[in-house]
């Protein structure tokens, strides 16, 4: 791709970007949200067409008017949100839109055999070609997306934040899959926020900032600190606000809590404290949050101030939850910032009249426009609206499930600051995160979940290795 430029509604989002990727190469593309990564990839995939510049595949200049043309030319893109039909089988999804036909009829046997063959080539045995996609895990669905790309004979595969929804052990599987793709001579463009993956997987890395190319480098020639500086122009050390020193009385305690997924949960959080919750995906982290929040309640054990049987009881007792999935669970996207921010206080009739501007300033929403529909906000600003929603009712305990997922680095720091600020003001905070640096940087204590139980409690500032070992069950402290 050479000299690519693109504007939307007069706003220039890309200018003069060059990018090349060789067969059998994994090329990482990094940058803050809004840096232009997605737009660049969508140009390659034929979703947008460039205003300037050219795209060449194997030296031949191409231009795509529709994603399907890009697919035919060998470009496949795997979005964060999968493009799969849950009610159809794996094979039907793999061949969607390209069903093989024999004598005018869909050749189901061919579909099944081809899919089975591809599954075998990838070494995937956990599901078969006629399983319904609805029954597959997120990681398995990702494999289906890769199958789809392979069956189209894709030579360039774009993966957009492929690990965002994966647990640590699933990430390992993904690494292996990417390695297989590389062996097949496929060029992989790998978009990620997570620097570790960039160094683990990619030969080269391209940094974008504000729609322009900053630098393309061999991963061997660059350090992760340098990379972060290139992305944000800021040092790693300023990532996390300083920890609080004082913790007060216990705000939340659970004794012997359990339900269908969880068992023997003992924990307490005090005012002013940030309790980190680590664990692999599927370890029960999110379920723990939902149990305390009354969404999937505990059925055993005691909890103070009370063991909620519903979300409303939890909210009434001063417990709030900032969900993992903002768009699906946190916000009514077509309603205004105001109506979203006030939703909780309106449903429990607490907090009295709120000055909306003051509220939005307190979460540093920029610009603070209460009448704007939240769907037009960036990820970071949306998360701030979710936060505002809870601040209106001044909860005693606030749980954050992956608070900075899909949020760019700048907004991330702001959210971290806000969390620390809330703790200083006396709130007890629980924070679930898959990003260990974040978790370790923010938490005053960390509990590690494994198989629905608490595998261990760690003091502030453990090493990533300690947390990982505990989460994976390799050692007991």
């Amino acid at each position, binding site marked *: 791709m050479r000299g690519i430029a693109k504007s939307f509604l007069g706003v220039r989002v890309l200018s003069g970007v060059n990018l090349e990727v060789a067969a059998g190469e994994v090329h990482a593309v990094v940058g803050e949200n809004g840096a232009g990564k997605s737009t660049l990839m969508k140009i390659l995939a034929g979703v947008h067409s460039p205003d300037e510049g050219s795209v060449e595949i194997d030296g031949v200049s191409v231009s795509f008017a*529709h994603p*399907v043309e890009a697919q035919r030319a060998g470009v496949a893109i795997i979005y964060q949100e999968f493009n799969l039909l849950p009610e159809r089988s794996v094979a039907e999804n793999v061949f969607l839109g390209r069903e093989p036909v024999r004598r005018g009829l869909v050749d189901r046997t061919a579909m099944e055999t081809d899919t089975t063959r591809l599954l075998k080539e990838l070494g995937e045995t956990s599901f078969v070609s006629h399983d319904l996609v609805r029954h597959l895990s997120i990681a398995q669905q990702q494999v289906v997306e890769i199958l789809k790309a392979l069956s189209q004979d894709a030579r360039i595969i774009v993966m957009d934040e492929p690990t965002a929804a994966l647990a640590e052990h699933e990430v390992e599987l993904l690494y292996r899959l990417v390695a297989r793709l590389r062996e097949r001579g496929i060029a992989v463009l790998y978009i990620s926020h997570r620097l570790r993956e960039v160094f683990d997987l990619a030969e080269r890395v391209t940094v974008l900032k504000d729609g322009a190319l900053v630098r393309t480098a061999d991963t061997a020639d660059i350090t992760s600190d340098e990379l972060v500086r290139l992305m944000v122009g800021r040092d790693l050390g300023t990532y996390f606000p300083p920890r609080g020193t004082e913790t007060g009385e216990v705000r939340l305690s659970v004794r012997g809590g359990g339900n269908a997924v969880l068992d023997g949960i003992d924990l307490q959080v005090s005012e002013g404290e940030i309790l980190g919750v680590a664990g692999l995906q599927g370890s029960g982290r999110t379920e723990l949050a939902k149990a305390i929040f009354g969404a999937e309640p505990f059925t055993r054990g005691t909890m103070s101030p009370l063991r909620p049987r519903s979300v409303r009881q939890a909210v009434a007792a001063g417990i709030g939850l900032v969900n993992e999935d903002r768009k699906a669970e946190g916000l009514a996207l077509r309603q205004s910032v105001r109506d979203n921010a006030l939703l909780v206080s309106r449903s429990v009739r607490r907090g009295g009249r709120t000055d909306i501007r003051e509220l939005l300033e307190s979460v540093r929403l920029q610009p603070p426009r209460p009448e704007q529909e939240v769907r037009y906000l960036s990820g970071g600003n949306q998360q701030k609206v979710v936060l505002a929603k809870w601040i209106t009712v001044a909860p005693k305990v606030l749980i954050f499930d992956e608070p900075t997922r899909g949020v760019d680095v700048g907004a991330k720091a702001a959210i971290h600051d806000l969390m620390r600020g809330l703790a200083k003001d006396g709130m007890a905070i629980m924070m679930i995160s898959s990003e260990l640096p974040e978790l370790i940087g923010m938490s005053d204590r960390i509990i590690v979940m494994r198989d629905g139980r608490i595998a261990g409690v760690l003091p502030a500032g453990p090493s990533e290795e300690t947390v990982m070992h505990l989460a994976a069950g390799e050692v007991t402290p």
Partner: protein
Amino acid sequence: MTERTLTSFSLRRKVTGSTLIIYLALIGVLLIGWVLVAVDGGNFLTLETVVGIQQRSAALGIVAVGQTLAILVGSLDLSVAYLISLTSLVAAEIMAGQDSGILPAVAAVIAVSALIGLVNGLVITRLHVHAFIATLGVALIIKGVVDHLYDGPSGSVPESFQRLGYDRLGPVPVSALLWAAVAVAAWFLLRRTRLGYRIYAVGGDEEVARLSGVRTGRIIVATHVLCSICAGIAGLLLAGRLGAGAPTVGTDGGYDLESIAAVVLGGTALAGGKGGVPGTVGGVLLLAVLDSVFNQLEVNAFFKDVVRGVVIVAAVAVYARRTVRRRSR
């Protein structure tokens, strides 16, 4: 060989679920009906009742098969009832009592209904009008035209074509055979053709289908054309039965809402992308058997409506419970 078994295995897996429930319910209702009628001193499963059930269900069944396609693609068609009236009139007028008019009449009916389906589909896909409003609007247009031109039965259907309505081969009425043919054709379309696969895809998630290169607009239009043709065939059948065309035959039968009810009763999701023809056939048969039981017990016609309403809601509630349980897995 392993591939063959794989395919048949997946086939079996798909048949279970809601389709199984509807057929179990059908057997249940047959048994209960048989007992009730026997207690009442009658004989339920006579040739007469079996033929009656088939005849009663044929017209609704044909419409419902078409409606299944529309609902599977994520749409729905509220214009079928008026289209049935219109096509019955078109058929009877063109036949005008002459055998020689049959072929042109059938051709005209297919053409008219295909045209209406095309309009429905284009209004939905090109003008971006919600299917509910689009087909309701088209229904009003047809009603206006039909009511303006006719205020009673009109035209005449020749003796030979009336056989479609009343003749039978052994215990099987010709109309039931016609229904079976339509159902099998639709089933085959859904299971074995690209159009069928894409109907499921568009109904499952239009955006996903589009990104996979499916021309979703065309699929929706094609589906509406097929749905309307089914309604046209039902119109032909009813014209054969009445011996004439009638401006109210479609609405009197309540074919619009009733066909949707039958489809949903058969386990097809109203949101699209899930379900199929076998379920619909079961749903239609269930409604017909209920009807037949009530007739034999000489239950008040209004009471039938009450029971029918309850049955439809109850069946869908059962499917909903199953889906919830499976999700919480």
